[in-house]
């Protein structure tokens, strides 16, 4: 993912672009994360001011949702499904193998910043699990080799 470093001007422009929407907060946060790969601390007061909210309120929203990150992720993000239908076809063993190979735990990033791994609870691929997603690439009947190869690509 190409990621820009955050500037207040860009943040303000993103906020201005979505302000007219009914319920603009999530679209703003998604756009900011898309642009910078995270929700930078500077964004919180800028959003609060534009939407006439308290900073604590904006921070409360950011921290509620699993998707929004305050620190940048690795260059590739692996998501492995841990939900029931994938468990029924061996997702747990798959996860253990991938985590061991990368030498990190859930939500961790490899030391070289190449890969972050996140758990996900269902990708809607429950009839062809175990399911994985590497950035936007979906993998069904996943095995560790395939997932790691995709993340290395």
């Amino acid at each position, binding site marked *: 993912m190409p990621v820009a470093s955050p500037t207040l001007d860009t943040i303000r422009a993103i906020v201005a672009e979505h302000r007219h929407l009914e319920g603009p907060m999530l679209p703003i946060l*998604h756009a900011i994360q898309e642009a910078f790969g995270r929700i930078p601390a500077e964004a919180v007061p800028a959003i609060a001011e534009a939407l006439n909210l308290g900073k604590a309120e904006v921070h409360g929203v950011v921290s*509620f949702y699993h998707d929004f990150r305050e620190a940048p992720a690795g260059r590739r993000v692996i998501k492995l499904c841990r*939900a029931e239908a994938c468990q029924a076809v061996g997702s747990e063993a798959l996860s253990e193998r991938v985590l061991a190979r990368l030498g990190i735990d859930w939500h961790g990033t490899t030391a070289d910043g190449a890969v972050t791994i996140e758990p996900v609870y*269902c990708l809607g691929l429950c009839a062809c699990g175990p399911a994985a997603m590497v950035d936007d690439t979906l993998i*069904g009947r996943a095995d560790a080799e395939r997932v790691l190869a995709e993340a290395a690509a």
Partner: protein
Amino acid sequence: MKVYVPLDSAARALGADAVAAAIRAEADRRGIDVTIVRNGSRGMVWLEPLVEVDRGDGRAAYGPVTAADVPALLDGTLKGHGRVEDIPFFARQTRLTFQRCGLVDPTDLDDYAAHGGLAGLRRAAAMSGPEIVAEVTASGLRGRGGAGFPTGIKWKTVQQAAADRKYIVCNADEGDSGTFADRMLMEGDPFSLIEGMAIAGLGVGATRGYVYIRSEYPVAIAVMREAVAVARRRGVLGPDVVGSGRAFDMEVRVGAGAYVCGEETSLLNSLEGKRGTVRAKPPLPALEGFLGCPTVVNNVISLATVPVIFEKGAAHYEAFGLGRSRGTVTLQIAGNVKRGGLFETAFGMTLGEAVEEIAGGTASGRPVKAVQVGGPLGAYMPRDRFDTPLGYEDFDAAGGLIGHAGLVVFDDTADMLKLARFAMEFCAVESCGKCTPCRIGAVRGVETIDRIAAGDPRAAALLTDLCETMKDGSLCALGGFTPYPVMSALTHFPADFATMKEAAE
């Protein structure tokens, strides 16, 4: 030659994009005229990527197809399945909601109309609001998102509320494990949902709609956005819906990875830009929903079923089903199964039929141990409940729930104690934090199950008590229904909690 290669997420996860690229390259190399249509899935996931080839004499199905199969596919020498409609899994279905999914080009509005699309909306456009609501009521349609609440009654409340602004909100958060019908429908036949929402808008007098799609569904988000743009350009959405003189427009919104945002009031908070905490009811969203205005909140499948009800008439739809469960149920067969996928059938088939005959048992070839029906908040059904017919009341009587109609099959290697622990862990991770029995109780639940595993003889009774407290003291079904998977595992599979049993003896 026309070749259909699904754009569906499951087909892609199994290599459909590489197959489409190989077909394009091989056709160019041979200099033959091949049009590739990226359709939705026909729902037979074990055959994906399922490619259909039309050489002018109907569509012939092949699958699973790999890139290496492409030369033989274009030669016509690859072994196939004949017509999709003749594959037993497909032939046994009653396809109403999914009648077009996989058949049409998802974002081609003319293709949609050529297959019965827009007939329902045109009919509704000539009816008054109360007449539209009455038709939905007569169809017997109940919410497919989980609770099974009669859709007509919900619409009537919104229709009768006096307000300048009303909304239609489609719940496309589909967070339940083992469910993918919403995703398949949005990817394969998005106009059905748009048409259903427009009919809902005309019915209750709402002029604006939102589809709240979970962020884990990038393909569905992209297809829906494109379809909304096409529908607006072609006058299906906008100030004058199909020439009716009435307005309805809609927008796609994306969630941010919170399971609880599938709960309707939490979803509304999220849509408003707040934390996705659950609101106390009353007030009902039908009276005070999005931004405080009367709002219909319905699941994708509920809304996407509305067009066929208006196209074929409420009586046609109502004629299918069992007891008070009318019409069809869109089963999602998942987990450890030989034939997984989407199976639409009239309510009334038994659970055992679906698992043994339709799904063909497990993929591992081992005996089925349990089936979790209705997502992470649904019960684990043991084999001795396989005679339960798929119907809301019947499942309730058997101690389960149909929910969004996902069936997750486990073979005899499944460890039910571990699955019960997972249910509590999931509840703890996803709790919105508003009530103590859910927020704290789920954490205690994990600890208590660990004590059972460690052989503490009193822990099972504690777990049962804790489940009672969660059931009675939770504001929504996340805390309130987590006891279903937990207690069903404990009651039906005592051997897996055997350390507890041994200690008690």
